[in-house]
């Protein structure tokens, strides 16, 4: 490295001051002006986090939120050069530091993840859509779906209720999140366990719909195939209308 250790040290001191705000000696610098760097940088970080996590910001007491944000930026080394991706590191930091327990915010991990995924899926690179065609009879076919999606499991239904109420009904909640092709809007679909199984198997595209129904009968102990199919088709029709189900895969 062509940089002398002393020069590096000065840069490192300035950077560390911007991250934690703790006074540090920097050669020839005007201390009263250094504070502007800390303020400007910390505002960028705060703004990015408040924009990405508006629900968390709203429901977490401001003193606690500020402390979490301060800890994050002072202790964590932000790795991503794209500032809009930085909030994902915030989510991972909070999870690894077990802040849900420490700050008695049981919903924290679920809520941050849920809010982050909306941004991630909204911004994600375009994925190639499968070749598909419309068919009236889906049963013997493999189903084509919008590839720009994610299925997640949450402990608290933060997608259905405000986080304060959601912590009272801990359970297994499944959620389909996808991006509409034309509008680019992100949509959320609450899934039952059965429909999660159905959608996950459709996405894998290893089995026809008929084979998936057969698996469901066996795994979920259902006897009434007709009812299963009737209800499932209503659900799948709705997903087709909403742009998640595309049609049947071309062989």
């Amino acid at each position, binding site marked *: *490295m*062509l*940089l*002398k250790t*002393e*020069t*590096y040290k*000065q*840069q*490192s001191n*300035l*950077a*560390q001051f*911007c*991250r934690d705000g703790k006074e540090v000696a*920097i*050669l*020839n*610098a*005007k201390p009263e*002006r*250094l504070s*502007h*760097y800390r303020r*400007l*940088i910390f505002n*960028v*970080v705060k703004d*990015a986090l408040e924009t990405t996590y508006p629900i968390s910001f709203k429901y977490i007491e401001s003193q606690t939120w500020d402390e979490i944000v301060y800890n994050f930026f002072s202790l*964590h*080394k*932000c*790795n*991503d*050069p*794209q*500032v*809009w991706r*930085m909030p994902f590191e915030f989510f991972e930091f909070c999870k690894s530091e077990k802040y849900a327990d420490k700050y008695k915010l049981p919903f924290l991990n679920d809520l941050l993840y849920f809010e982050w995924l909306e941004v991630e899926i*909204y*911004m*994600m*690179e*375009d*994925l190639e859509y499968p070749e598909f065609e419309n068919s009236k009879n889906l049963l013997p076919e493999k189903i084509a779906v919008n590839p*720009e999606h994610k299925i997640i499991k949450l402990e608290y239904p933060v997608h259905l209720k405000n986080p304060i109420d959601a912590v009272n009904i801990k359970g297994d909640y499944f959620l389909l999140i996808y*991006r509409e092709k034309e*509008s*680019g*809007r992100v949509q959320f679909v609450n899934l039952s366990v059965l429909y999660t199984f159905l959608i996950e198997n459709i996405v894998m595209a290893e089995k026809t719909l008929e084979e998936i129904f057969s698996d469901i009968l066996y795994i979920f102990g259902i006897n009434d195939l007709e009812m299963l199919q009737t209800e499932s088709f209503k659900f799948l029709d709705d997903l087709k209308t909403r742009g998640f189900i595309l049609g049947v895969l071309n062989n």
Partner: protein
Amino acid sequence: MDVKAGIGFRKDFAEEFLSGSVLKPGFVELAPENWMNIGGFWKKKLNQLAEIYPITSHGLSLSIGSPEELDMNFLKKVKSFLKEYNVEIYSEHLSFSKCDNAHLYDLLPIPFREDSIKHVAQRIKQVQDFLGRQIAIENVSYYTPVAAEIDEATFISKIVEEADCQLLLDVNNVYVNAFNHNYDAKEFINNLPLERVAYIHMAGHTKVAPDLIIDTHGEAIIDPVYELFEWTLEKIKPVPVLLERDFNIPEMDELQNELNSLEVIMSNKWKASNVIENRNI
């Protein structure tokens, strides 16, 4: 690239760019960090934008002044972005925004020192080799010197010469720094390698204390900055000029008026025919 006045593309008023009803920039500038590796709604908007306007790119996160190694993975993505959008001018700040492997998402001043010159020049060369093009390096505003041992103009000049890169001359930054650090703006500009200026930035700023201006890009350009701009243009060859406006966005006709004002000056000072006034298009 034609010698025109352009403006930074902002999501806040993206539709104004696309409709072209009031705002008619000659080109648009955007930060590749905010636009690369994305899809969906904003990718479509970006593609529409690229069909209408030439694009220049002004980076934020390369951190050319960082002590650590360059992020080649990031640079690879930048290269691909520049190619995809046929970007002729790629510029970056003469500053650092990452240290000890932690991004800071803002621009910090590099110590004005001889070892920094060698270090930064080598990194610029490495970037240019990788991208297969010259890049333009911008003089940044700063609020306090950090461990400086030489003057700013010498620091910038030596880096630009040693790296054999272009200079993005930010006239507002010169004004801001001259005010904040009590030096003569014209003398400063005279001491720069003006033959290397490939691009100019103009912007407004905010005075936060009697002795301190912050480079906010949140106000209209003030007259003394216009005057400095006018004076500067006599000394350099015609280059594209960018209006930076990132906050406190006014009505579009106000922005267009600023673009018009810049182009009138460009046209008057650079009587060469290659100044194209957008308001006449």
